[in-house]
């Protein structure tokens, strides 16, 4: 027995050792609630003396203005040092460990830091809300509006404790390096002024440092001289000193600014890159000095600062050092970036406004403005001022630092960062923006944020600014704007800091800005969803997997596409309303050796373009352009589309330019054709040839196709049935309603219903019929079931007379439970669709409930009543409602139906279909669409399916109920959710070992939550489901775009104890061969019956049900329905050898015990398999054990 080499589980178990344990179903048997016993009681030692606590708390206020290097280095580290010693005393052994190790030390550090702060914050939060009654009992810990909910707030506090920066070994080591570097740089000798050529040669020969001139490099005959002098100032800037960066980052980035003396510059140096040339030289000199002094300790390299090719920086990282014992000690994980900058008064601010041109073309003056050049230079001038701005905000606003960390976490999880390739909005921009918004930005220059906001309010309000204001249309201006700022906003976002005369968002690319706004809107919408605790989706989830975020991915080599912004505009224009989002991901800039020349910016690597499609329009084959009369527009249309544009006359008589694409079924999808055409026409043929387009690889797995239209025949037939039955005359009772109650009628069955007779035996779709009330029904359950049969017989007779083209007959079911429904009416239309109709009678529920409450009845009768009630509710109350709701959602979300079908296929492929009811799968998938956070509702099958798996892998069903609002109109109220949760918790309390209810799945239609999951699946199955989803998710995460869809759908069979391979007969493919020569039996004649009688015949399912009945307590059966022709089994560990007794529920071997006293009973596996083989007969091809 071997699974495919690509098989999922084997792959996962090799690569993700954590999941191995839960992967094998055999092991899952033993999987218990072990998590509950894991020792997690962490000591939080709060024994730090109060006086010291205060000292640390106020360290920020001790810092004097601007956080000068000296003050940082001395007084602060003093305080911190003391704190560190404190920890030493308390918990000496923990300090031995790795810095990144989470030990008690960390708990202490954070606990100590946050305890006093928290109370202060809490007081602050209460102040503005005094009108609301807030309990004082918990120190104002109740959130009352300043947070989304208590839970959210507690989680945020917890998160902040985990990410707040603290002083560890890494930080200490970085500080020592800072001191050393400062001394070195200050002590370096000045170099006299020399020409460009001389300077280059000098540095290269003396220190092997190439000057990292930006492109274009300075002319050889430049008149100006390059010079190096002792820096005016050296300072630590950025998030390290402001304590606004998260400590969970892998490397600690420390920015060190070196202010170049103004004497080096001339008035006009801001023009034509001259400042940047001088800066590059200055940096090279520093690099030479540092290299000379520290080459043994540190690794040096150059990098473009935030991918800005104009501004190289020196990156210093520690080398691995030899420890005392001669072993190599890993280097502490920090990096110091040396950023040369200038004073704010060196160049006039108004020359560097975004509307000015500072790079004069050779020929004539008056050229285009150069906003990004200007802002880049301006940013260098404002290094110290920006630090001051953020620092003062951090001192006046208590929650500022926390909000910064929330913001930077939020950005990071969305793949956004300060560098241009990551979008240009990062930690610094977020902090500076918040600092600015505390000063102004609102109406009449009033501040948007208040200093008394909580961290969550600051965070949310900042998001609101991004979401609500389109900064690319109208700049957000804080303070006084110099006159022409507004006019200069050219489609790029602008946050104008009037006091510093600078555009904060100058690095942001148009696609990144759209992404930022979209994410902000999504997050706000999610935080506004009161039914959903958005914490994980806001801060914990990483949203950078293109498979989960986008529907299609286009990959281009950066070399072939130099001008990405142009490509963006072209794609945007060309794809129009077919796509909802275009998401560019650029490769990030590389670092280079000091001796090497600076590489051209991002010349290598892959440009990844994620496309989110509009499912309604993406496959449109004809595009209408401007009409022929409209000359100018038609011309530009022709120019854009070239020979592809055709003038056509349409049905409505209009003559207009148009585009016609081949329908996607044959080869490339319409979208791919357009994209390739556009690249070929507007970029280059080479680029088109090298481009790879990843289309939806998951849809082809569904046959026949993903469209809802394959379900149309049965939906129409259902309507026909309604008319037919309602049109019958002289029924004893008039029909109140006929309801659909089947997956086929909600577009959700894996196989769309077969419509061609003779080719496939159609499975009948369940429907319920309800009559108007009558007092003539018997008041007894068994009699009611017989009366129902009488009604159905009546309908059957009447239909036979009145309706043409339909065959009717009555079928019997539930032989062993005579209070359950006993008969159904089967209606088979000649066109193909078939239905099973059952009568829904209200009174049954009352009778069953009464029987349940009746104390005089035997337990077995009560159990039967309980089963009856659950079945009644499921079949007549919940499923029809569920069917209507899902059908409604399917027409609302075009990708939902196919996603449900694909997900069901996934469950089938992993042989879980017999245990996980399909309604639950539907709820899981619907959740991905109606509660799509942190994304928007999926627009393709691929994203829908992968996100469902992603959610499934994280769903902790032990502690979380699945609650879905299927109404689409927020019918589910918070009150309902609360009561569902209460019910869930009651179940968990009642049945903590989860013997009965494992998955809890509720919706607005079914607030019970246990309708479909009572008794099935068991905990073993649910664990296996999670393990499989985890393995799949790990694979999706690891392989990303190279994921092979089919590999998610294969799992090996060797995990099972035995496997029954079913023969073709089981699927009704072939008529039974008569080679056995026993045609004398009547049974065999049945095989030749006409097709209508074989409707709904599924021997494999009958066989499985019987196996479950006969061996259910000894064997756990797995089946994938029609998707996989096997039934697999695991022996229940409860069948382990035990002392012999009469009442064992499985076949046994009596074995003499070792001590020759008693007799042990062992399960007789061979005899059972032999029995199963006899039972299955020709259904089983072979039994593999």
């Amino acid at each position, binding site marked *: 027995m071997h699974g495919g080499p690509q098989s999922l589980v084997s792959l996962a178990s090799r690569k993700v050792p954590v999941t191995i344990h839960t992967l094998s179903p055999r092991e899952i048997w033993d999987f218990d609630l072990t*998590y509950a016993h*894991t020792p997690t009681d962490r000591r939080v030692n709060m024994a730090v003396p109060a006086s010291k606590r205060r000292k640390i708390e106020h360290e920020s206020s001790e810092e004097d203005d601007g956080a000068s290097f000296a003050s940082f280095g001395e007084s602060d580290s003093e305080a911190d040092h003391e704190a560190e010693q404190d920890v030493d005393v308390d918990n000496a052994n923990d300090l031995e460990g790795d810095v990144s190790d*989470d030990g008690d030390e960390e708990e202490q550090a954070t606990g100590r830091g946050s305890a006093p702060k928290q109370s202060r914050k809490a007081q602050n939060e209460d102040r503005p809300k005094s009108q609301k009654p807030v309990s004082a*009992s*918990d120190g104002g810990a109740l959130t009352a509006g300043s947070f989304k909910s208590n*839970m959210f707030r*507690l989680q945020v506090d917890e*998160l902040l404790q985990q*990410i707040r920066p603290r002083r560890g070994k890494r930080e200490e080591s970085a500080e020592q390096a800072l001191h050393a570097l400062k001394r070195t740089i200050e002590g370096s000798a000045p170099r006299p002024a020399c020409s460009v050529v001389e300077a280059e040669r000098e540095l290269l020969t003396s220190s092997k440092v190439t000057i990292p001139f930006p492109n274009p490099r300075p002319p050889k005959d430049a008149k100006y001289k390059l010079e190096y002098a002792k820096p005016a100032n050296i300072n630590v800037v950025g998030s390290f000193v402001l304590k606004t960066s998260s400590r*969970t980052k892998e490397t600690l980035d420390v920015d060190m600014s070196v202010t170049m003396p103004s004497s080096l510059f001339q008035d006009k140096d801001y023009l034509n890159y001259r400042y940047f040339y001088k800066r590059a030289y200055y940096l090279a000199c520093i690099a030479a000095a540092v290299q000379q002094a520290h080459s043994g300790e540190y690794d040096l390299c150059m990098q473009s600062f935030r991918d800005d090719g104009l501004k190289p920086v020196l990156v210093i990282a520690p080398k691995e050092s030899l420890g005392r014992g001669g072993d190599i000690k890993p280097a502490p994980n920090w990096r110091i970036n040396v950023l040369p900058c200038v004073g704010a008064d060196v160049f006039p601010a108004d020359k560097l406004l975004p509307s000015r041109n500072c790079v004069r073309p050779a020929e004539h003056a008056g050229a285009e403005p150069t906003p990004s050049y200007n802002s880049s230079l301006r940013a260098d001038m404002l290094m110290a001022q920006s630090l001051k701005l953020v620092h003062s905000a951090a001192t006046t606003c208590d929650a500022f630092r926390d909000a910064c960390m929330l913001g930077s976490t939020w950005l990071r999880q969305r793949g956004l960062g300060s560098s241009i390739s990551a979008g240009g909005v990062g930690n610094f921009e977020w902090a500076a923006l918040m600092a600015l918004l505390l000063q102004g930005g609102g109406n009449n220059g009033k501040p948007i944020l208040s200093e008394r906001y909580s961290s969550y309010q600051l965070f949310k309000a900042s998001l609101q600014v991004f979401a609500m204001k389109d900064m690319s249309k109208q700049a957000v201006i804080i303070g006084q704007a110099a006159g022409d700022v507004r006019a200069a906003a050219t489609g790029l976002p602008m946050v104008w800091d009037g006091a510093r005369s600078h555009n904060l968002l100058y690095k942001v690319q148009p696609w990144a800005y759209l992404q930022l706004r979209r994410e902000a809107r999504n997050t706000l919408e999610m935080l506004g969803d009161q039914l959903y605790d958005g914490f994980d989706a806001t801060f914990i989830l*990483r949203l950078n997997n293109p498979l989960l975020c986008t529907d299609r991915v286009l990959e281009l080599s950066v070399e072939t596409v130099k001008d990405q912004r142009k490509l963006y505009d072209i794609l945007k224009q060309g794809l129009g309303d077919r796509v909802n989002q275009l998401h560019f991901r650029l490769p990030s800039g590389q670092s280079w050796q000091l001796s090497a020349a600076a590489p051209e910016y991002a010349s290598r690597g892959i440009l990844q373009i994620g496309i989110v499609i509009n499912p309604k329009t993406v496959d449109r084959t004809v595009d209408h352009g401007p009409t022929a009369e409209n000359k100018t527009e038609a011309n530009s249309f022709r120019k854009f589309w070239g020979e592809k544009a055709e003038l056509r006359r349409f049905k409505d008589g209009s003559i207009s330019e148009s585009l016609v694409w081949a329908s996607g079924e044959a080869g490339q999808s319409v979208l791919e054709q357009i994209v390739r055409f556009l690249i070929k026409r507007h970029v280059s043929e080479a680029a088109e040839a090298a481009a790879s387009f990843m289309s939806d690889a998951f849809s082809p797995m569904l046959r026949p196709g993903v469209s809802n239209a394959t379900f149309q025949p049965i939906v129409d037939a259902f309507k026909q049935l309604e008319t037919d039955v309602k049109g019958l005359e002289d029924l004893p009772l008039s029909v109140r309603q006929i309801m659909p109650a089947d997956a086929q009628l909600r577009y959700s069955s894996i196989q769309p219903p077969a419509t061609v007779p003779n080719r496939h035996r159609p499975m009948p779709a369940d429907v319920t019929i309800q009559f108007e009330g009558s007092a003539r029904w*018997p008041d007894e359950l068994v*009699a009611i079931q*017989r009366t129902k049969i*009488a009604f159905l*017989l009546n309908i059957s007779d009447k239909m036979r007379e009145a309706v043409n083209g339909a065959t009717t007959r*009555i*079928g019997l079911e539930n*032989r062993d439970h*005579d209070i359950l429904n006993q008969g159904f009416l089967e209606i088979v239309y000649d066109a193909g669709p078939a239905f099973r109709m059952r009568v829904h009678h209200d009174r049954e529920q009352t009778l069953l409930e009464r029987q349940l409450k009746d104390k005089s009845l035997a337990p*077995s009768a009560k159990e*039967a009543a309980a089963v009856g009630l659950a079945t009644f509710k499921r079949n007549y109350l919940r499923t029809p409602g569920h069917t209507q709701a899902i059908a409604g959602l399917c027409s609302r979300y075009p990708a939902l139906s196919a996603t449900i079908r694909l997900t069901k296929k996934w469950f089938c492929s992993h042989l879980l279909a017999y245990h996980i009811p399909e309604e639950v799968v539907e709820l899981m998938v619907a959740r991905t669409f109606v509660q799509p956070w942190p994304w928007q509702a999926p627009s393709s099958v691929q994203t829908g399916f992968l996100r469902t798996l992603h959610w499934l892998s994280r769903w902790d069903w032990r*502690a979380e109920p699945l609650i879905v609002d299927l109404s689409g109109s927020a019918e589910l109220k918070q009150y309902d959710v609360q009561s569902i949760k209460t019910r869930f918790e009651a179940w968990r309390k009642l049945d903590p070992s989860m013997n009965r209810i494992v998955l809890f799945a509720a919706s607005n239609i079914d607030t019970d939550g246990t309708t479909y999951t009572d008794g099935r699946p068991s905990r073993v199955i649910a664990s296996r489901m999670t393990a499989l989803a985890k393995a799949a998710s790990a694979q999706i995460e690891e392989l990303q775009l190279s994921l092979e869809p089919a590999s998610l759908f294969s799992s090996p069979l060797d995990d099972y104890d035995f496997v029954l391979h079913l023969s073709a*007969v089981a699927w009704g493919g072939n008529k*039974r061969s008569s080679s056995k020569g026993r045609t004398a039996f009547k*049974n065999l004649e*049945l095989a030749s019956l006409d097709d209508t*009688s074989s409707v709904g*015949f599924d*021997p494999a399912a*009958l*066989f499985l049900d*019987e196996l479950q009945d*006969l061996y259910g307590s000894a064997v756990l059966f797995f089946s994938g329905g029609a998707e996989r022709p096997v039934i697999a089994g695991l022996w229940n560990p409860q069948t382990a050898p035990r002392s*012999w007794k*009469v*009442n*064992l529920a499985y*076949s*046994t*071997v*009596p*074995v*003499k015990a070792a001590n020759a006293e008693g007799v042990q009973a*062992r399960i*007789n*596996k061979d*005899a059972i*398999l*032999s*029995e199963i*083989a006899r*039972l*299955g*007969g*020709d*259904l*089983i091809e072979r*039994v593999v*054990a």
Partner: protein
Amino acid sequence: MVPMPSKHHAVANAVNEFTVLPLALPPTSSFPKKATHYLYLRPNAPKLPTADTPREVFLVNVPVDSTETHIRALFAGQLGGSRIDRVDFEGARAGKGITAPVTSVKKGRKRKRTDAEGNVSTAEEVGKLPETWDRELHRSGGTAIVTFVDKASSDLAMKEARKAAKAGQEIQWSLVIEAQAKLLGSARYTAHHSLAYPDSAVLQQSVDDFMTAFSAQESARSRALTKQRSVPDSDGFVTVTRGGRAGPAREEEAREKGEELKKREKQRVGEDFYRFQTREKRKAEQMDLVKGFEEDRRRLEEMRKRRGKVRPE
């Protein structure tokens, strides 16, 4: 696959009072392996013996697909030729345990029915729905009671079984007999599928019979109740019975009325009428908030235990 335990361990030939009779199972095409099934038998000894008890043998671990024919052939053909009166298979498919030894069921081969239906068993007998299976199966490890024609036959059968067990004689199961029984495999399911759709006339007849019997029974019962209501018993008490003059709905109506009254009482004095009411209400709200907070804190604590620290991925 774990090999047959019997190859490594000695199989007992008796356990408690049971004789262990090994039955050789023939290999099939899909499972070409010889297997041995172990049938346990002993003279039946129920707690409440009946007249038939002496000629009964109690079987444990009957093969799931055994029929009366199989059992008859087993004893007649291979175990001394004792003649069997009838075989009663254990019918109740209760989830876990079965009570053993099972007493002989009077009704014959019919399955044991639940109490719910016991009320209407008279109607059941006439209005039974058509059978949908042509061959019954039995739960794995299940029991059966074999009633022989007389005590001598049952003793002979037991003796032969003991002898066969001791001698390790190979007893064949179902080789010849299977050919006479109804087919298993797809044929059985095909038959079931066709039996599940009985002829509508037959079905109509069965339903009619049932309903006639049912209404007869109903009227008999209501007559009996009326009688009970009016006639004192031997001690002079009149039994209180449901369904008096006001009909069966009375109970529910009374409950409803009671609740209505309670509601009215509550509405009579408004909720915000007295100051203490508002105060208490506010207090309760605050308590709810505090409780909610504590609850959330507990939940977070649990979550931390489950998932470890809250940390961005």
